[in-house]
């Protein structure tokens, strides 16, 4: 085929720059994780042995406990509420479809702080109980929130929406025909749910639980606050408490193994049966009409997660914020907000830019190498923030030290920190963590632009970049904004990587919340926490809008 100029270049054999670019970006994302495993291979001798003999077992035990507890919790709440709002009809169903997502807006560490403020000895709940019954400290037992169970509860309350969201989508996608067939073959609605609907939704449920558990492994703020020893707290302690970055890298590598096991388990759970929908016809969902006690139960079952996961903590934060804002919202607060905004905006731009390049090079080259590069780039989401921090900071520090030593030896001047502790380093970390968020959105949007449009533009004399700029970018603009917003909010909420990697004295709202809460100034932290929660509502609103667009073939007013 005779193709002129750039066409031939794109269609040609050999390596084109788009492929190189994609491979380069993928390598950049993979590098911190590779570095962690590389660093972990360096023996640390007696310290590691000491660790292994003392605390390692509790790290492993607590981490597994956390995973099991949160996994069970999010499955029960997520699947139960998703089934109720999609398959049953009861008062408030439409409202619940949306508000069940709200707990996502609250970072785990914030809800942990809030409930501590509400439920500890001097908090309003216990104080009220003592007043009401005339008890004193020794007269009653109250559950200890600062425990493994407490951490599980907090994480479950804010992470169940992942399962809810995916389970709901899965139930909606299922053809109602298969459930009706199951009914005519002698199954009650309940048994149809367990024997047909649930098994069909299994891949989606596995994906939802995996997301929730990745967030669990990523968490540092909650477990640290509740003094539950996990790998996250262990890494932090080894690195900054004991000054042993090598040990931190080893713990980070072990934590990464947990993540890999999780990803593997999800893949395996999908198994051989890929659940193609065998039915393409959509019908009005059956909508089991619930009345009386059953309806009341459904309302309660949907209301409790929303109340505990959002309404109660948000209200508490609002009340405290009103109380303390006059003192806390000052110039320093505005500086924090500006820093948060700056970091989030830079990261969002970087992530969306890289995502567009990756997705577009995949479209242009359609090669396996680029497809693999995109998948690798998307895997960064699985790496916990502290793992990424270790994987970036240690090599960067080593680099800085070498340059510094070299410059001092050669020219007698110190270059200090060139990379570590800069905005570049922390942006890099965010890019690794959140590129997947942007990439998913951009890929989905690009897939909607038919290849014929590319070809039309190309035949009209536009090169790949001009086509991207003049055809794809305008079509994709709403999705790019969505992608940027999602990354922006994730960065605003992010704690562990920011904590380790931010430039010296460069505090953000999240850092401020964490530090004030650490000083037991929970009410003082409320303004900053509330600001984070409010920003966190934005992606929830985006999701809610997508949900309200409904499902194919659904014509109910």
């Amino acid at each position, binding site marked *: 085929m005779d193709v002129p100029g750039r066409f031939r270049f794109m269609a040609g054999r050999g390596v084109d720059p788009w492929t190189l670019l994609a491979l380069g970006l993928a390598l950049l994302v993979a590098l911190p994780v590779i570095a962690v495993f590389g660093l972990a291979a360096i023996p640390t001798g007696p310290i590691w042995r000491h660790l292994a003999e003392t605390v390692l077992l509790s790290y492993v035990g607590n981490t597994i406990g956390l995973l099991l507890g949160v996994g069970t919790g999010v499955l029960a709440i997520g699947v139960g509420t998703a089934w109720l709002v999609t398959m049953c009809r009861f008062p408030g169903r439409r409202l619940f479809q949306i508000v069940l997502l709200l707990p996502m807006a609250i970072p785990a560490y914030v809800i942990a702080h809030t409930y501590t403020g509400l439920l500890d000895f001097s908090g309003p709940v216990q104080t009220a109980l003592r007043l009401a019954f005339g008890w004193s400290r020794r007269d009653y037992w109250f559950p200890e929130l600062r425990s493994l169970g407490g951490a599980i509860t907090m994480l479950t309350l804010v992470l169940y929406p992942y399962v809810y969201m995916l389970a709901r989508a899965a139930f909606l996608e299922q053809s109602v025909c298969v459930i009706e067939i199951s009914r*005519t073959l002698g199954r009650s609605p309940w048994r149809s749910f367990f024997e047909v609907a649930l098994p069909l939704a299994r891949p989606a449920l596995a994906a939802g639980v995996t997301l929730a558990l990745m967030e669990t492994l990523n968490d540092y703020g909650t477990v640290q606050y509740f003094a539950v020893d996990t790998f996250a707290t262990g890494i932090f302690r080894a690195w900054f408490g004991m000054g042993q970055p090598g040990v931190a890298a080893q713990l980070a590598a072990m934590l990464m193994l947990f993540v890999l096991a999780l990803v593997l388990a999800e893949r395996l759970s999908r198994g051989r*049966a890929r659940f193609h929908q*065998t039915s393409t016809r959509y019908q009005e969902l059956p909508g089991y009409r619930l009345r009386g006690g059953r309806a009341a139960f459904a309302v309660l079952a949907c209301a409790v997660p929303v109340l505990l996961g959002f309404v109660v903590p948000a209200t508490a934060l609002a009340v405290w914020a009103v109380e303390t804002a006059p003192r806390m919202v000052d110039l320093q607060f505005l500086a924090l907000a500006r820093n948060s905004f700056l970091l989030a905006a830079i990261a969002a731009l970087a992530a969306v830019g890289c995502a567009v390049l990756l997705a577009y090079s995949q479209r242009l080259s359609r090669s396996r190498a680029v497809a693999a590069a995109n998948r690798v780039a998307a895997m960064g989401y699985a790496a916990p923030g502290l793992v990424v921090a270790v994987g970036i900071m240690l090599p960067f520090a080593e680099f800085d030290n070498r340059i510094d030593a070299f410059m001092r030896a050669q020219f007698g001047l110190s270059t200090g920190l060139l990379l570590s502790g800069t905005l570049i380093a922390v942006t890099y970390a965010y890019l690794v963590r959140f590129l997947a968020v942007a990439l998913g959105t951009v890929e989905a949007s690009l897939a909607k632009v038919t290849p014929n449009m590319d070809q039309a533009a190309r035949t009209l004399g536009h090169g790949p970049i001009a086509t991207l700029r003049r055809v794809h970018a305008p079509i994709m603009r709403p999705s790019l904004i969505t992608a940027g917003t999602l990354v922006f909010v994730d960065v605003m909420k992010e704690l562990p990587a920011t904590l380790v990697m931010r430039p010296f004295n460069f505090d953000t709202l999240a850092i401020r919340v964490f530090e004030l809460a650490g000083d037991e100034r929970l009410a003082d932290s409320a303004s900053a926490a509330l600001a984070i929660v409010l920003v966190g509502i934005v992606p929830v609103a985006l999701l809610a809008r997508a949900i309200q667009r409904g499902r194919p073939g659904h014509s109910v007013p």
Partner: protein
Amino acid sequence: MSSVLDALHLERVSHRFGEIRAADGVSLTVRPGEVVCLLGPSGCGKTTVLRIAAGLERLQSGRVLIGGQVVADGTFDLPPEKRGVGLVFQDYALFPHLNVRDNVAFGLIDARDGEARRARVEEMLDQVGMAGAGDSWPHELSGGQQQRVALARALAPKPRLVLLDEPFSGLDSRLRDQVRDQTLHVLKQSGAATLMVTHDSEEAMFMADRIAVMRHGRIVQVGRPTDLYCQPDSAFVAGFFSEINVLNGIVKDKSVTTPFGALAAGSLGEGVAAAVLIRPEALGLAPVDEQGPEPACVARVLAARLLGRTSLVHLCMGDSGGAHLHLHARVPGQFLPAENDIVAVEMDRRQAFVFPAEECA
């Protein structure tokens, strides 16, 4: 009236979706072993009737009896899982998470005995010509194979009544004939009563012992396929079974004049606008014989096409008012006169029907 023997008996079933009357006083009986087709254009309410029979749609008014037992009467609805009906959807709705064997075994709840269960599954797969496919997954099957598995699944628990919702419309036409044929034999062999919904009159005639034609939520005529074809009650039924020629006229002296002579107008009143419906195969054509007697009726050929077993000839005739009529004639075998040839036309009066013109509007 309902008999204990009836597999399905619907009694004045009415159903509304908001303002839309999906079913309006539908009464219908399906006897054991009988295949009844509910035939009608899309949106006529036939699927709603089927879903009410299955218990998938709550009955609003009327009564539903299965095997002589009341399963719904407006105050009470027996849930679908207790009705013992088999159901096959248009898109088959096989369970994608189960292989073929487990799909077919899904309804065999009572078979405690694993061996009996296995045997029944194999028997059913064998009956539908899918023996040996038990380990396949639904997505590995072609459309025709999926349809057969869906049928085996519906019949496995030996239901008294099988409900089929457009079961062949997902198949391409050649495959459809074959699957149809096999389905009819499997159904007849099972002895179950069958209610099938379709919009395809040819399919209904192929499958049905009796056909109920539905329109706007009402059943307009029920009978054997030959009854409906040869003695339609209405222009709608007459026109639903084939393409049909329509001639307009006025009733005069209890008859309507056509180029083929006067036709009895039946009960139509004097001066009423009438429509004469003539099936294309009612028109017999012959070359004009120069030597023979003058034919009673002639027409000019506009075009002639061979359509396989029959030929379609487009004719132009002058009617009594001097206007030109365009008629279609279907002639067995190959009969292809040249354009503008003049042919002799004869009409089989048994296949011409007179109805009020307003019915054809």
